[in-house]
Structure formats: structure tokens, C-alpha cells
């Protein structure tokens, strides 16, 4: 039986990246691929956990990274994990594959390009076949809600992941249609109303927290 390890790259264990991982896991298991999810932050915090994850990765046919965008790139714990993998010269199963899902709050998935570039390079260094990456923009609105509770949006994402898993088990690169299915199309003309809504939400949350001045500068001389 083939196996898959999904690495949740978010330091927050139960948010959007984890929900994406769960959705992929469901699809993979439906295709007969034994799938486990590990949080990179757990490996970062515990060397025992790191050893366990490495052992699993060495036996896995498929390795997937599911990560948020932090300041235009991979989060620090993910980079640390990647550097550790290379340092430890971990073994790779013959024919092993690597893919990535990256998500961000911004609508434009092209902002995820530096992450995809890094993941492809990492795959080469790990001697795993790079089978592609998928970006999701507008992830902040999902806010860690399970796919089943997201209605039409959840169905589209789930369908995209089922297409992706189908490609993986058929030993193919992830087809472009998956990205098309995942892409949230927000017309440029809606950016201002979207910004207005998001800003209103932030100010509401701040007021609930007793904060009235979002613009403070505690470090200015």
C-alpha cells in the first residue's frame, strides 16, 4: 500500500493549512493511500517528534507540504525543517514524489510564486520528483473552517484536491486544471470594497479588544 505524509507548515495547528491537509488526506485515503498529517511546529519544538517525522518521510511515496505565506515566503519553522532535512541527508524511497499547497490571504496566487520556486528546489535537493504546487488566494476568509462547513467554496476546493490526488496516484504531474479549480477569482473592481470590508472587520475586532488606536508606534524615537 502506498503512503503519504502531509506536513502542515502553519505554526497554528488547526487553521486553514490543517483543514486543507485533512481534505487531501480524505481524498488520498479514498484512493487507498495511507496518509498521515504532521505539524512542522511539533517537530520544531521537539527533537523526538522530528526524528519520528523523518522516519515517516523516508518511507513515504508521497510527501506534501501545506503551508501559509508568511511575509511573501515560507514560514521560518518550515525553512528550518527543510534545512534540517538536507543536513540529515534523509533517505528517499525510489520514485518518491513531493508536492506543495500554499495559501495566503491576498487574492492573487502569483504572490505564492517564491514559495513554489523554493519547494521545487527543495524537491531536487531531497531527490524527490517535484510533481507540482497549487496556490490558494483568499485563504484568510476560510479561517480554519472545515471544508464540509464551507458550502460551495468547500466543494470546489475538495473537488480540486480529488483531481490532484488522482494525478498523484496515476504518477502524473498535477494538472493545471487543479489550479484553475482552486483559484478564487476576485475582479479588480472589487478590491476596494473587499479592502473596506476587511478593514471594517479588523476595526470591529480591535474595538472588541478595547483597542481604539490601531496606528500606535511603540518603537519610534
Amino acid at each position: 500500500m502506498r503512503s503519504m505524509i502531509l506536513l502542515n507548515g502553519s505554526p497554528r495547528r488547526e487553521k486553514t493549512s490543517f483543514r486543507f491537509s485533512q481534505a487531501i488526506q480524505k481524498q488520498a485515503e479514498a484512493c487507498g493511500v495511507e496518509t498521515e498529517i504532521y505539524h512542522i511546529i511539533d517537530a520544531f519544538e521537539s527533537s523526538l517528534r522530528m526524528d519520528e517525522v523523518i522516519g515517516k518521510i523516508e518511507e513515504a511515496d508521497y510527501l506534501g507540504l501545506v503551508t501559509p505565506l508568511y511575509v511573501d515566503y515560507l514560514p521560518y519553522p518550515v525553512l528550518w525543517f527543510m534545512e534540517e532535512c538536507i543536513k540529515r541527508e534523509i533517505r528517499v524511497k525510489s520514485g518518491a514524489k513531493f508536492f506543495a499547497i500554499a495559501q495566503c490571504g491576498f487574492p492573487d496566487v502569483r504572490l505564492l510564486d517564491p514559495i513554489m520556486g523554493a519547494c521545487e528546489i527543495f524537491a531536487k535537493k531531497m531527490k524527490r520528483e517535484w510533481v507540482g504546487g497549487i496556490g490558494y488566494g483568499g485563504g484568510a476568509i476560510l479561517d480554519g473552517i472545515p471544508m464540509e462547513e464551507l458550502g460551495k467554496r468547500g466543494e470546489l476546493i475538495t473537488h480540486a484536491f480529488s483531481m490532484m490526488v488522482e494525478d498523484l496516484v496515476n504518477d502524473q504531474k498535477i494538472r493545471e486544471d487543479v489550479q484553475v479549480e482552486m483559484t478564487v477569482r476576485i475582479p479588480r473592481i472589487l478590491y476596494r470594497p473587499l479592502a473596506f470590508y476587511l478593514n471594517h472587520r479588523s476595526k470591529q475586532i480591535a474595538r472588541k479588544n478595547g483597542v481604539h488606536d490601531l496606528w500606535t508606534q511603540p518603537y519610534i524615537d
Partner: protein
Amino acid sequence: MRAVILDGHSGKNHLEEILLEELHNQNWKVESFFLPDMQILPCRSCGSCGTKTPGTCILKDEMEPIFHALANCDVMIFFTPIQFGGYSASLKKAVDRLMTMGLPLYRVKGDHLLHPTRYGNKRLMGLGTYQHCDGEEVVNFNLLVERNALNMISPAYSHRVFCPKLETHTIRTMIQEMVEEVTS
């Protein structure tokens, strides 16, 4: 100009000596932080710095002097070995915490939704060190610096990659060009 160097190399780098000399020749005031030695916790994206304790991170570690330096500088300098076509983990541990320097709001600029900055828009220099001066890792690194400059709403930015085959006079010329690009 006041500049802050965030150095993500694992050991002291001869290139940094040249960089400091060139910046001092331009009468820049420079503060440098060697990050591998600094105890900096990973950002948890908790959102506190946005809507609970605006501008202040709830993680108390050695980022405090870095926040202070960056808030008051004109130029941020990311100085890093290129890993997987981007910043080293040591540099990224500090860069992730710069979310504190942005506002939890959005503004539309061109085709993008961006976070306004809390302390004004800083210029950005990205200096990468790598075994080659070209190739896919260099291309990805340059793209990353450009994206950071876009999202930090930098009025000017510059990126260069330095490889071992470069002679000292070439390195100096490249740094002078970078200074020219961020101050024009």
C-alpha cells in the same frame, strides 16, 4: 541614511566587512544584527500585534532591539546565504516577526491589496550569497526580494547575489550600485 542589516549567515562573512565599509563611506549610520546568535521565537500569526496590542509583539525575546532599529531606519538590508532560492531560516525568523511593523488593514495599490506600514515605507536591499551568480536559486531569490519590496511598499529596492568568483573591486562596485538604486 540610517540602515539596519539583518544578517542570516551562520558565521561572520567577509562580504559584510566590505558592505559596512562601503556604507560608512556613504556616511550611512548602520546597525547590524547577527541573527543566528539571537534568541528569536517563531511568529505564531496570533494577530495580537494587529488588533490586541497594536505594534507590540506578545512574544518577549531578542526582537525588541530589532523592532526599535527598524522602526527608526530608512533602509532595511537583508543579508543572507541563499537557501532553496530564498532567505535562510535564521534570517526568516526575524523577517516573519516584521508583521508587527504592518497595520492590520488593507489598501489598494495598483493591482494589489497591501498592508499599510506602521513606521513609514522603508527602502530594501537584499544581498544574497551563493555558490553561483546565476541559476534558478538566484532567480527565485530576486523574485522574493521584489515581492518583499512590493508588500512593504518600499519606495526603492535593490537585490544582488554575490558568489565566490567575484573579486573585491567588483563586489564594491555592486554595493555602490545598490546604494545608488535605493537612494535614487
